[in-house]
């Protein structure tokens, strides 16, 4: 059971759990692909027989003495912790608390759990807590809405437009534009009056005839400004704004049908995502390990992934139905940890259900921290698992991740970067292991794969596009993993 819970907890980090509903909200077809690959890829990786059969304990080490996989996985775990702690900071800001509070709570709790030996076997318990705490608000929302998930999906898919609900906090009290930090531009589809409850400076790009112009207003508290269709708010503003009820949400799909029937991205992008997750899962779940799953173990892993995907779908549908304002500025992960439907529940139920969601997120993070620590410890070349039990090392890891999280980042992009990098370094050898006694070949292939991955990942910063090249830059594992596999194949050929 422990190995099953470690697989689930290591794979189902809070960022991953929220990335699927966020993708479903943003573009249904792409979200389905992400969720399906996220649910099936670990099963594929665990199903691939690689390496020698282990001893009766159920898990074992395939390679010893090589520092390369240890260092690679250590960096991967660090980046994954960074992504999840940064998400905690985003959630704190979204819930109107200081960013550092979310960061400190999660980082300290995670470090304590990994440092205190008696708490290291709590992953199954934490996963169970996360499951109950996430499902309870979902059932409550479904009951309050009075629609099952399929009927709710149908309701969303037949909406004429996504409009601000009158009870939305963006309408009643207003929110800071800094919290709408998604990637979508804030372009208005119709005339919209914005009010600044506390005053401040608002900048927008408008069309002056056919010529674009940038206008800046200095608003006194309570003063309003009216924007026309096609006008766009300049990103980077921190002004608190109130929007009008029943007006279209800027950045939302044109209608429910447009949301449900938007064509998926190019197939090459979908293959890029699949390869990234496949090699990432190979690195994270089985590089250097041979995991044996009995029938009930395989069932638990598959069932856990199925439940997580089902939760993500239902949560996304109810969130879009009850809180279409989550489209404002693009769907960000932290907004999905807020309870949808401002008018659905009265206090104190609303606060209680919100607390359930936060407990679910924290429990999932703690479970993944325990699982990742155990994963790294199992790879320790000294054989004693010292890396997994060094409190100083883990304090440094959590401390560094917490410090880096003070600056907002895209947690999902970081997670993909970590999985892609680890996948290119360790994935090919995990899926296509070199002959016994040739660990150096795996290291060489991993180094080449990682180098190619890093080169293309660095090109992301330049933002260069193009069809094939653009996909390779967007998903560098699409190039890095085959490069590593090629080195492995050539090395095997020479050995033969």
């Amino acid at each position, binding site marked *: 059971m422990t190995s099953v819970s470690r697989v689930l907890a290591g794979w189902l980090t809070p960022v991953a759990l929220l990335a699927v509903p966020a993708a479903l909200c943003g573009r249904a077809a792409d979200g389905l692909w992400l969720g399906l690959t996220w649910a099936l890829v670990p099963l594929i990786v665990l199903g691939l027989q690689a390496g020698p059969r282990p001893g009766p304990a159920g898990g074992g080490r395939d390679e010893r003495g090589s520092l390369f996989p240890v260092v690679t996985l250590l960096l991967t775990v660090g980046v994954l912790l960074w992504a999840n702690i940064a998400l905690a900071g985003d959630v704190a800001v979204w819930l109107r608390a200081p960013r550092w509070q979310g960061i400190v709570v999660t980082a300290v709790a995670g470090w304590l759990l990994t440092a205190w030996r008696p708490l290291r076997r709590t992953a199954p318990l934490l996963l169970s807590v996360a499951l109950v705490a996430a499902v309870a608000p979902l059932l409550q929302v479904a009951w309050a809405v009075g629609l099952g998930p399929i009927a709710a999906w*149908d309701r969303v898919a037949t909406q004429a437009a996504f409009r601000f609900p009158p009870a939305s906090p963006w309408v009643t009290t207003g929110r800071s534009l800094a919290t709408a930090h998604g990637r979508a531009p804030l372009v208005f589809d119709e005339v919209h009056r914005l009010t600044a409850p506390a005053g401040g400076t608002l900048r927008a790009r408008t069309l002056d005839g056919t010529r674009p112009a940038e206008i800046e207003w200095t608003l006194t508290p309570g003063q309003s400004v009216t924007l026309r269709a096609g006008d766009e708010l300049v990103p980077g503003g921190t002004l608190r704004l109130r929007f009008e009820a029943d007006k279209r949400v800027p950045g939302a799909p044109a209608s429910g049908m447009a949301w449900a029937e938007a064509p998926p991205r190019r*197939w090459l992008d979908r293959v890029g995502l699949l390869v990234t997750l496949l090699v990432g899962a190979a690195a994270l779940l089985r590089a250097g390990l041979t995991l044996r799953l009995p029938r009930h173990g395989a069932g638990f892993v598959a069932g856990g992934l199925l439940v997580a995907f*089902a939760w993500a779908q239902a949560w996304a549908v109810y969130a879009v139905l009850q809180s279409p304002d989550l489209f404002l500025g693009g769907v960000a992960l932290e907004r999905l940890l807020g309870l949808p439907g401002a008018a659905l529940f009265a206090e104190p139920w609303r606060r209680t259900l919100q607390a359930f969601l936060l407990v679910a997120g924290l429990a999932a993070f703690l479970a993944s921290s325990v699982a990742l620590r155990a994963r790294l410890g199992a790879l320790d070349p000294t054989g004693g698992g010292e890396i997994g039990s060094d409190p100083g090392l883990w304090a440094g890891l959590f401390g560094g991740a917490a410090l880096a999280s003070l600056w907002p980042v895209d947690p999902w992009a970081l997670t993909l970067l970590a999985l892609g990098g680890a996948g290119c370094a360790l994935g090919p050898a995990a899926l296509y292991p070199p002959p016994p006694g040739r660990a150096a070949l795996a290291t060489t292939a991993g180094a080449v794969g990682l180098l190619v991955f890093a080169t293309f990942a660095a090109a992301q910063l330049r933002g260069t596009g193009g069809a094939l090249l653009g996909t390779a830059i967007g998903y560098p594992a699409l190039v890095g993993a085959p490069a590593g596999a090629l080195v492995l194949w050539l090395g095997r050929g020479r050995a033969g």
Partner: protein
Amino acid sequence: MRPVSTRSTGVVLLWLLLAGFLVLGALPNQTASIRLGGLSVLWWYGGLLAPALGTLVAIRWLADSPPRDE
């Protein structure tokens, strides 16, 4: 040549489930958008059928056989 194991069968079936989603999305005339029982065909497959079948495949084919007496 390595023998085809039950795991290999399971892995192939899981790949087919993933490929099915890509094929469904590539069908002409937006076939995947057709609504059946309030849900699009794509969502029936990608959100319900394929994950459920994946779970069944994992239970049936991916588990290790119990160790033989040695």
